[in-house]
């Protein structure tokens, strides 16, 4: 992707910027994901833990950092393995909150553990990305989100059901890899849209 001279090289869409809340206990990974998201024309807020993320989102209904309309979070991308609260636990808390559950959550992990992937997808994760996350993953995610955003507006903020995930994932899978499954779990459940074929061959 050719990156322009001007900061992020993003064209102004006229609409609000896509705001992503990134959660990772690693300062290095936060720096990288922040850069990946900025290049993909997203506004980024990066925090170091699940509890900080919940604070930011104002899940306890108290003083939230969000003036909800101004700083609306369009996507949460979180590391799985974090001390204190794991990404999975954060996912559960978000999906368990009436206020926040419509926000899509993507999990990142350095470990290719299918049971983990399944668990997260069943809990309502939008996708499961292998670390190190690459620009192509983020761009694909952003495109998918932006496309799905309109649908969400139309049908109201209903909780994303598995059927919804399936149909949406099939769309992107058809585009990329119509025939080959991206993972074993894809056979049984919905295909995480960003799983790369080489995933199965990695260590």
């Amino acid at each position: 992707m050719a990156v322009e001279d001007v900061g992020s090289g993003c064209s102004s869409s006229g609409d609000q910027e896509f705001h992503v809340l990134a959660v990772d206990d690693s300062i290095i990974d936060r720096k990288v994901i922040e850069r990946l998201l900025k290049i993909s024309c997203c506004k980024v807020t990066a925090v170091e833990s699940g509890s900080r993320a919940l604070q930011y989102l104002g899940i306890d209904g108290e003083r939230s950092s969000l003036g909800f309309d101004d700083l609306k979070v369009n996507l949460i991308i979180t590391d799985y393995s974090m001390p204190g609260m794991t990404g999975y636990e954060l996912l559960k808390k978000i999906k368990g909150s009436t206020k926040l559950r419509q926000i899509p959550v993507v999990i990142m992990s350095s470990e290719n553990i299918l049971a983990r992937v399944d668990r997260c997808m069943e809990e309502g994760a939008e996708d499961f990305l292998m670390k190190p996350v690459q620009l192509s993953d983020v761009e694909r995610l952003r495109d998918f989100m932006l496309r799905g955003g309109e649908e969400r507006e139309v049908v109201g903020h209903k909780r994303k059901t598995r059927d919804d995930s399936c149909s949406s994932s099939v769309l992107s899978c058809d585009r990329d890899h119509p025939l080959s499954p991206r993972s074993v779990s894809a056979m049984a459940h919905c295909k995480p849209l960003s799983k790369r074929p080489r995933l199965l061959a990695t260590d």
Partner: protein
Amino acid sequence: MQRQLANMKQSLFDQGYLDEQFIQLEELQDDANPNFVEEVVTLYYRDSARLIQSIEQALEKSPLDFSKLECLMHQFKGSSSSIGAKRVKSECTQFKEYCRVGNSDGCKRTFQQLKKEYATLKKKVEVYFQFARQIGPVEKACRSK
């Protein structure tokens, strides 16, 4: 000069010090963020120093707390992977394996090797970045991105 830099980088890859992730990071650089990779790598060495220290301390305990060691190493492996430090990452994997089977000597041996690779990589990338910075301004003028 540019070719020299390219050769330097190629050599780091050929010798297995760096992997594709390093290239991925380089692709995130632009004129507004020309030193992104150097920043990330610098951050890595600064941040991982405390992890190395924690692991060192944990390895002095007797008996070893393998669970704790594995956890610390998992973090270290993650960061190493994020910057494309291939050899370091490989030692991390080995270390975690030894933790899993409870092999103290294996852990200690591997850690010594890991520190060597970690230090060697640091020197090599420092040279690389120094060189890159020197030819940087020239490169910008000629580069057609």
